[in-house]
């Protein structure tokens, strides 16, 4: 990352989806967005459900990221996520069904409640980002 570019790698369990060099990028963290410029200090973070913006030569490439992690090392920014897709590929009806299902989970234990929150956040983010 020392040559003034950010090396961004997006990996899903199926394959390496993206492997690009860019000027900077914005990551959707669990609690808000986080920008990465060349030379950022090493970091491991949890991703939320939101948009990954890759900026390169004045252009912005936007992807939807479905949770996961990011690891920033000296060499690269590695984004690990279950799913990565373009914004128009988000299936709104499926997300609404997921939301209903998540609402039906009874939070009887701390774990179940965490699971419920997580599913709710995922479904709501999808609905929000697909509507615009």
């Amino acid at each position, binding site marked *: 990352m020392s040559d003034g570019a950010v090396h961004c790698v997006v990996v899903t*369990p*199926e394959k390496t989806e993206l492997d690009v060099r860019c000027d900077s990028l914005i990551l959707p963290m669990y609690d808000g967005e986080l920008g990465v410029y060349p030379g950022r200090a*090493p*970091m491991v973070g949890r991703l939320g459900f939101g948009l990954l913006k890759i900026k390169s030569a004045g252009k912005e490439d936007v992807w939807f990221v479905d949770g996961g992690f990011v690891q920033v090392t000296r060499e690269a920014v590695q984004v*690990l996520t279950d799913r990565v897709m373009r914004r128009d590929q988000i299936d709104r009806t499926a997300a609404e069904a997921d939301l209903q299902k998540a609402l039906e989970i009874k939070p009887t234990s701390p*774990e*179940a409640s965490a699971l419920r929150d997580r599913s709710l956040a995922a479904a709501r983010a999808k609905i929000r980002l697909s509507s615009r």
Partner: protein
Amino acid sequence: MANIRQLDKRRKSVRNIRKITRTMELIATARFKKAMDRAAAATDYTKAITKIVQDLAKSGTDVTHPLLMPHESVKAVDMLVLTANRGLCGGYNGSVVRAALQKRAEIKEQADSGCTSVSGKRGISAFRFANVPVEKTYTEFDDQPSFDAVAKIADELISRYITGRIDRVDVAYTRFVSSSKQIPVVETLLPFSGIEVPQDDSAKGSKIRDDYEFLPSAAGILEEVVPASFRARLFKCFLDAAVSEQIARMVAMKSATENAGDLIKSLSRTFNRARQSKITQEIMEIIGGVEALG
């Protein structure tokens, strides 16, 4: 006369079968290569996850998570059996089903078996034949299982395990060791043991140690890493099963083609012999007739 015609007919039908089996072998080879590429592409994710876990462990975090903890008493055990949708692949389906049924009998002795889920039409009919009740069936997994579909199953299992409805999850599938060796196994996936934590890394004398910043905290990340690596692990099982199926089909069809070739050879020999003996007999008859006239 009838014998010769019958032999010829039989030879023709064997030839047709050989054509079919050879084509199936070629298809299986192509699919095997594709499945293999997918399995290779999937290792990137596993490697990256392992690296994160290692970095977490290095930072002095205790690696604990509800999915990693065995339940005190094992009362309900879920079992997932991965078979193929189609046959003609030698002992592939049979051996997975056999291993699964054997394990299931063992489980029954100590605990109530929870849900038994079967993927693949062949497995479903085998379980029906064995009179084993199956709660869930999947037939959508072919030679290229999609992660989304597998993740749904994984999430379901995670929530059942965390909420305490089940105490163990076993998966029966064919593990891919190398292209010449695949073994049917029954593995316990939950409580999860797939996270390897390096005990002592200082011996490596690694160059510069990166001091990672953890957002939100090491424990918070771990909470996500464990389910993610469980999903990846289950996905790996599906990929292994898909690759093994294609190899099994390739091998089965190759030997079927060879056997058909042998059969054609021996049929041709009998056919030629029968034809020759018929000709000889006719000549003898003609000579006999000429002699009688003369």
